[in-house]
């Protein structure tokens, strides 16, 4: 009987909150706009691995003898230009001298330069390696890294082809045998699931988890401090309702709101950004619920500690900011320096996102994400045990 009252009261309070929410058009619109905004923004500003597109690269050929370009350097340039066009990565521009190329890089007009050395043809002819220098733009380290890697592989690929044809010519092995001699290993790259995932496929699980978990963490303190400020909370506190029903009702409402938000993100991701869910849908939903559960305690704690909306807001900023960047929503945790990786491992959001990514991208089942599930559940439970006494104390002031 007592329990029945408790539950009924929570449901009524939740129902009231959701009714208010459903009548707030602005909030409903934000439910769609916000994730859309976030995905578009982050989806397009963060490097997706193929940012190399028509990068202007200066080409300097110093391999001149008596006013004539050496034939080896000309052949290399032809190969590079062809590769540049085919891949669309580079746009090679012939430039007069090294100093001119340096100048163009400094002015930001070129992303790098390839300089073929003075005695390129002669060196190759006499059994030495032909010198090639690659200049890069130090003001854009991330881009330069990619430019260098791509140029490097382009040049060495040309070199390999050249070697194979030399072997073919001099030893008389057939084409396949000569390439096998020059490059004895054949590497092919394959993911564990078919298809080539886009950056959105990586991003969507993270954003979904982030928004859902933040919605309970923010929603709870906001809902309660708002009621305190407008005075309606007194009405609820003065009614014969248990404190437990109040917090449970509020949590329930925020969870429904969070799940709605999660569903919308997923739908947007699938419909607009071509994301595919490779794992079971029920597991995605289950993970969202678990994510919410793990953050309820945080929400209640903030509610109890912060007496007004502003303080609550501050606390949330303090928690959200690092979480957004450390939990691997936008780039893999492994890309961070080791100490940041430790910090990241202390955040529940990291595990939630990791698990969600496994399910959506890799098609994982429950057995594959057991660790994450246990961690999230444990975190949520421990925090609830901290939060509920705090809330009770805060309410009886």
């Amino acid at each position, binding site marked *: 009987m007592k329990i029945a*009252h408790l539950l*009924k*009261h929570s449901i*009524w*309070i939740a129902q*009231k909150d959701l*009714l*208010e929410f459903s*009548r*707030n058009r602005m909030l409903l619109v934000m439910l769609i706009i916000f994730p859309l905004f976030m995905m578009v923004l982050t989806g397009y500003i963060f490097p997706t691995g193929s940012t190399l597109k028509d990068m202007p690269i200066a080409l300097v050929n110093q391999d001149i003898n008596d006013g004539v370009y050496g034939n080896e350097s000309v052949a290399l340039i032809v190969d590079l230009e062809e590769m540049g066009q085919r891949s669309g990565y580079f746009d090679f521009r012939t430039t007069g001298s090294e100093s001119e190329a340096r100048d163009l890089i400094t002015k930001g007009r070129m992303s790098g330069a390839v300089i073929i050395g003075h005695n390129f043809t002669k060196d190759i002819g006499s059994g030495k390696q032909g010198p090639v220098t690659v200049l890069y733009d130090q003001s854009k380290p991330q881009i330069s890294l990619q430019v260098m890697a791509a140029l490097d592989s382009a040049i060495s690929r040309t070199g390999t082809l050249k070697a194979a044809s030399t072997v073919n010519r001099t030893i008389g092995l057939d084409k396949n045998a000569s390439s096998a001699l020059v490059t004895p290993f054949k590497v092919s790259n394959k993911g564990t699931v078919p298809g080539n995932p886009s950056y959105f496929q990586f991003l969507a699980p993270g954003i979904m988890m982030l928004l859902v978990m933040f919605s309970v963490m923010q929603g709870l303190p906001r809902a309660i401090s708002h009621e*305190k400020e*407008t*005075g*309606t909370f*007194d*009405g*609820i*506190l*003065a*009614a*014969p*309702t248990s404190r437990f029903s109040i917090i449970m009702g509020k949590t329930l409402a925020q969870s429904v709101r969070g799940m709605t938000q999660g569903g919308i993100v997923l739908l947007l991701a699938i419909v607009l950004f071509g994301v595919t869910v490779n794992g079971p849908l029920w597991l995605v939903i289950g993970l969202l619920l678990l994510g919410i559960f793990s953050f309820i305690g945080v929400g209640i704690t903030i509610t109890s500690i912060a*007496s*007004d909306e502003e303080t609550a807001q501050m606390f949330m900023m303090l928690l959200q900011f690092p979480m957004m960047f450390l939990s691997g929503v936008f780039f893999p945790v492994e890309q961070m320096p080791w100490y940041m990786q430790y910090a990241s491992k202390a955040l529940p959001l990291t595990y939630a996102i990791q698990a969600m990514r496994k399910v959506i991208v890799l098609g994982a089942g429950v057995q594959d994400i057991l660790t994450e599930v246990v961690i999230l559940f444990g975190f949520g439970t421990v925090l609830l045990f901290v939060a509920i006494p705090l809330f009770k104390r805060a309410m*009886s*002031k």
Partner: protein
Amino acid sequence: MTSPGHSCNIETKGLTKKFGGFTAVDGVDFCVNEGEIFGLLGPNGAGKSTIIRMLTTLSRPTSGTATVAGHDIVRDPHKVREMVGIVSEKMIMYDRLTPRENLRLFGRLYNVPRRALDDRIEELLTIVNMTKWADTQIGKFSTGMRQRINVVRSLVSKPRVVFMDEPTLGLDPQSTTEIRKLIQRLNRSDGLTIVLTTHIMNEADVLCGRIGLIDKGRIAAIGSPSELKGRITEKGRTIVDLDLFDPPPDAADRLSRAESVLSAAQTENRVKVMVSRENAFEEVLSAVRENGLRLRNASVSSPSLEDVFLHFTGRSMVDEVKDKVPMKGGHGPWRRSGSGRVR
């Protein structure tokens, strides 16, 4: 203050609330009888709201306690909550909900059975003439309409006791009258016990059976309005109101030199004179003549609660609240400035 052999519906015993080192309510004792409208009258910051919050279990007393409808507010807050209704300083209602939805939510939280609740809501909305608006979101309502809903919201569980903290705050004269009539009606027809706070003397005067004058967290005097006024006029003290032509600024001072004049207070061309004998009217008039003052009108007036407050606390309540109360039109649509306080 308990009268012997008579049980109080609400009884406070040394009720005290401290905020840090500041004592907001200081050992307050009073008794409210069943079916009575009891007023707590005092200036801003007197501690009225704090008393109401303690009695409705929203705030725990630092020391002392009270019983409300037979239950102790400290030991048995849950029972107290079941018995009482509250009209708080800030309106308790959700703007995005309709009156019906608001009342239904609170009715449910008070465990009113479904069928009874629907009837009760209908009945309450009819009382305040709001049936037409029952299903419109409250956000669109005027302050007067909102306050009508706010008051009946406190009644949805049929409480025997209702606490109202400044129920006419911020209302225009017409709405003020409406709410006052509603309060009287609830008290008379349903025998509801009502404790209300106000800083408007006239309101306390017309509404309350008994009043507790409260100043700086303490009760200064308790009694019915006429009793309280009687304590001023006992021993034959009389108040004479003078209306003068162009009085000099020291008119009151000059008059107070007369033998039986106890005190005189001047506001513009009016001077209020308190004399020690009932038959001193003549004497006041000759003092006026002797001082070369020209009289337009003179009358013996009965003391107001203002005079009572001044008498018991040594402070004028009007001074305290002057800025809050426009001269015309009841206590007008001013908005309170101090409401940003943290509780």
